[in-house]
């Protein structure tokens, strides 16, 4: 679905922000966080048609929803994460829970359930994970057995246990993945069905406003029309199909939570006077704790937006891209929150300031929807195929694109990005020649390099184009950020790539294939750029 116009989207975000301002002051969230309490009344209001109706975003227009596009969802998710990641997760679970239906449901099923979710404001849960099956869903143990009546399949009896299900204890409707005779399949299970129960609400490190619980299914009968798609065996494909998109939402969570912490730090740094000047004027502070995080977050924003636009334009799959977005944004968000605690010193370590809570909350984004280690693996696998298929040309080609961009616009770090991509191509080729991908660690590191190199390219490209509504910085700052990110990518891939290859291979000529001198020379100007970013952050997030 294409996204809506910027004005409508802006109004929705404003309504959401205003709702948070009015109803979710920090003291309220802090209290719920301490009590490990799911704010049912908040969710009810957020689903209320005349207040917000946030769940309608995911419901297509023909079923009474709004049918938002990916870009819209990214923006809303970022904003939800700024409010509270637990509440955001609860909303997200409904989004996620409707996905199997959206991807695999029959027309009748969609019409029936989508309309019902929209109209009756159902909280939905997505129940795939099991004690022994996380990202490795093939180990699924929950079984769905046929119930035969008059010689025909009348329904299923589902038995098994689900674990860590968001909204597990509070949802009205559950999309449950179970192994049917024909293979893994999705079933719609309603609250109150006989034999179906939720376990206790988990006592979690963070997102404590989100209800998380295990599910017990003991011979639960579901009628056959609750088998999504009316056909067995499509469960894993359906689960895979939406990853490009669902991981983008988690990416937006990392982005929103990270910025929310960092903004607090930027504002604090202007007010905290130390040795007669504010912390925000001290490079040792800003260039260590603030600037790199702002750069990483904005780089991941550029990447998320690029992928959101491609999905809105109709591209499908994009699983590697979804993984890169999730990986880079959630790592950036987690680090930003961590450094924000440090930036606030003792205050950051107390619960009087929200950064400590954000840090606990944002950690989940590195874990759910596939841990970031699974992301590294996914990214590596996706691009390794490309590397082999193109005989090593994949990143060489991308590097040439960046060199061309540098010719058009020398201010966006495209040259450094090209160097990052060329170096990446060389490292990958060297890994192939020396069969180094037998080392799992190296493959995961390649996932990391790929993520950085590709993000730098997208950032440079977007920093050169007319920039989007979400960017709070002027062109000068936005481009300075792109340069900083591209330089760091090139340097990291060169240094760490050489170290990995030389450390694992018997012998390698990799160092001679990397243009280290040029990578070093493009580092020039980094101090000035960091100064620019530090100054602009102060202006954009001015302490009052």
């Amino acid at each position: 679905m294409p996204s809506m116009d910027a004005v409508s989207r802006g109004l929705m975000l404003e309504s959401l922000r205003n709702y948070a301002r009015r109803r979710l002051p920090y003291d309220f969230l802090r209290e719920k966080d301490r009590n490990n309490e799911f704010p049912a009344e908040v969710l009810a209001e957020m689903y209320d048609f005349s207040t917000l109706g946030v769940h309608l975003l995911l419901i297509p227009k023909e079923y009474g929803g709004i049918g938002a596009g990916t870009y819209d969802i990214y923006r809303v998710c970022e904003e939800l994460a700024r409010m509270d990641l637990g509440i955001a997760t609860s909303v997200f679970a409904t989004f996620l829970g409707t996905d199997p239906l959206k991807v695999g449901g029959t027309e009748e099923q969609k019409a029936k359930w989508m309309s019902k979710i929209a109209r009756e404001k159902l909280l939905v849960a997505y129940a795939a994970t099991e004690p022994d099956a996380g990202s490795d869903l093939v180990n699924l143990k929950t079984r769905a057995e046929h119930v035969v009546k008059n010689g025909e399949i009348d329904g299923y009896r589902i038995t098994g246990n689900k674990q860590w299900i968001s909204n597990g204890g509070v949802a009205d409707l559950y999309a449950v993945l179970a192994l049917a005779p024909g293979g893994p399949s999705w079933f719609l299970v309603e609250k109150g069905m006989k034999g179906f129960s939720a376990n206790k609400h988990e006592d979690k490190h963070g997102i404590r406003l989100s209800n998380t619980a295990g599910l017990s299914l003991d011979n639960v009968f579901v009628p056959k029309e609750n088998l999504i798609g009316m056909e067995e065996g499509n469960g894993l494909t359906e689960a895979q199909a939406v990853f490009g998109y669902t991981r983008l939402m988690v990416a937006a969570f990392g982005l929103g939570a990270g910025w929310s912490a960092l903004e607090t730090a930027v504002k604090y740094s202007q007010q905290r006077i130390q040795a007669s000047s504010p912390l925000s004027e001290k490079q040792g502070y800003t260039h260590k704790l603030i600037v790199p995080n702002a750069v990483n977050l904005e780089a991941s924003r550029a990447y998320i937006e690029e992928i959101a636009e491609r999905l809105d334009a109709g591209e499908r799959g994009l699983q590697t891209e979804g993984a890169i977005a999730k990986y880079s944004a959630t790592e950036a968000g987690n680090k930003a929150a961590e450094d924000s605690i440090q930036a606030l010193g003792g205050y950051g370590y107390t619960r009087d300031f929200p950064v400590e809570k954000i840090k606990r909350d944002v950690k989940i984004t590195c874990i759910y929807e596939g841990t970031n280690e699974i992301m590294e693996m996914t990214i590596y696998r996706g691009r390794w195929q490309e590397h082999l298929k193109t005989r090593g040309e994949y990143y060489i080609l991308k590097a040439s694109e960046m060199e061309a961009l540098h010719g058009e616009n020398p201010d966006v770090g495209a040259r450094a990005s090209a160097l990052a991509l060329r170096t990446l191509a060389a490292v990958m080729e060297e890994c192939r020649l020396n069969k180094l991908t037998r080392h799992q660690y190296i493959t995961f590191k390649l996932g990391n390099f790929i993520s950085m190199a590709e993000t730098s390219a997208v950032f440079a490209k977007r920093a050169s184009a007319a920039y989007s509504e979400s960017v709070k910085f002027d062109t000068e700052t936005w481009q300075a950020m792109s340069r900083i990110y591209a330089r760091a990518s090139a340097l990291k891939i060169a240094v760490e790539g050489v170290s990995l290859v030389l450390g694992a291979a018997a012998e390698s000529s990799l160092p001679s294939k990397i243009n280290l001198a040029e990578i070093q020379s493009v580092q020039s100007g980094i101090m000035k750029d960091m100064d620019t970013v530090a100054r602009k952050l102060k202006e954009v997030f001015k302490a009052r």
Partner: protein
Amino acid sequence: MIEVLDKCIGCSKCVPACPFNAVSMVGKKAVINEACTLCGACVPACPVKAIVITREDPVHRDFSAFKGVWVFAEFEDTGRKGPKKIRKVTLELLSEGRKLADELGVELAAVVLAEKNRNYEKELGAYGADKVYLSENCEFSDYDTDIYSAVIAALVSKYKPEIFLFPATFTGRDLAPRIASLIYAGLTADCTGLSIKNGLLKQSRPAFGGNIMADILSPNSRPQMATVRPNVMKVSPPSDKTARLVKENINIPEGMRRVKVLEKKVAGYESADRIDCADIIVSGGRGMKSREKFNVLEELATLLGGMVGASRAAVDMGFKEKSRQVGQSGTTVSPKLYIACGISGAVQHLVGMKTSDIIIAINKDPNASIFSVAKYGVVADVHEIIGKLIDAVKKAKKIK
């Protein structure tokens, strides 16, 4: 220029609408005579929109005939029995207008619309007016936008002042823009400084939400109109001069008053409730952190015999009611003593209190702009100071 189009149906509704008897019916058509001041009062009276006033090209107008500084004289309307008093802000404007007139070498005049003259030329003259343009009519006893704007526009057309100052009161803010719109004149609201620059009125005011100052000129229209809030300008000491009285007879046509006031209620006007009447103000801002902490200021204010004020931020955060808001967007004050607690000092706040005699500012941030207007400054957490200050004041007043 004014013209009556051919579509005039001869209904003669425009005739009584004119305050100057400048419209008469000739045959079956309205004719405008030379008494017309282009005030525009007849335009809405015409049911077929046959009367059209076209104004000259704004850029190429000749302003040589426009001379003198005018001040609109506003009267108190407190509902008390007896003759209405001239509002103090009028005297503030005269004092300021005097300086402008002197610099330009022109006359200063006050415009008085009243039921009856009560030696206004004496009081207004004492505060600087050379002349008083007075129109008497029983219709003037209750302010009405349409009547006042038509009459004043007519006076402007006739006597052509180059500068015209209005108080930025509820009345002034209702009247001035209506007149400006009627005569195509530049109007600058809530000026905090007035001066002459190359023969033009330079009007200074906070702009863009009050964090920055702007100088504004109206080079291509006359009069140059400005409103000024009460307490922004200082009143000069009175002299024993009397102004020359120029009486203007104006007929107020029937039906000109379109807004019927059914009831007037005086509320919250007692000086005990009014922040702009307080001699001592203890004011708090965002730095007071919470409503509870803000309330500590009450004790200090009571001890000093003053009142508590608040910045816009403090009011927005619900620490204090809007009626106590000090600043351009609230009330402008000029007390003897102003203690600013945890107020960083946005321009719009500063212009609303900087004429206070003594300003003491307490703020954590040494760069806070409040210090730029403060006579005494304290860089500290306001919460650490206030308690001690209350104790010290009690000790000085020998209160246990």
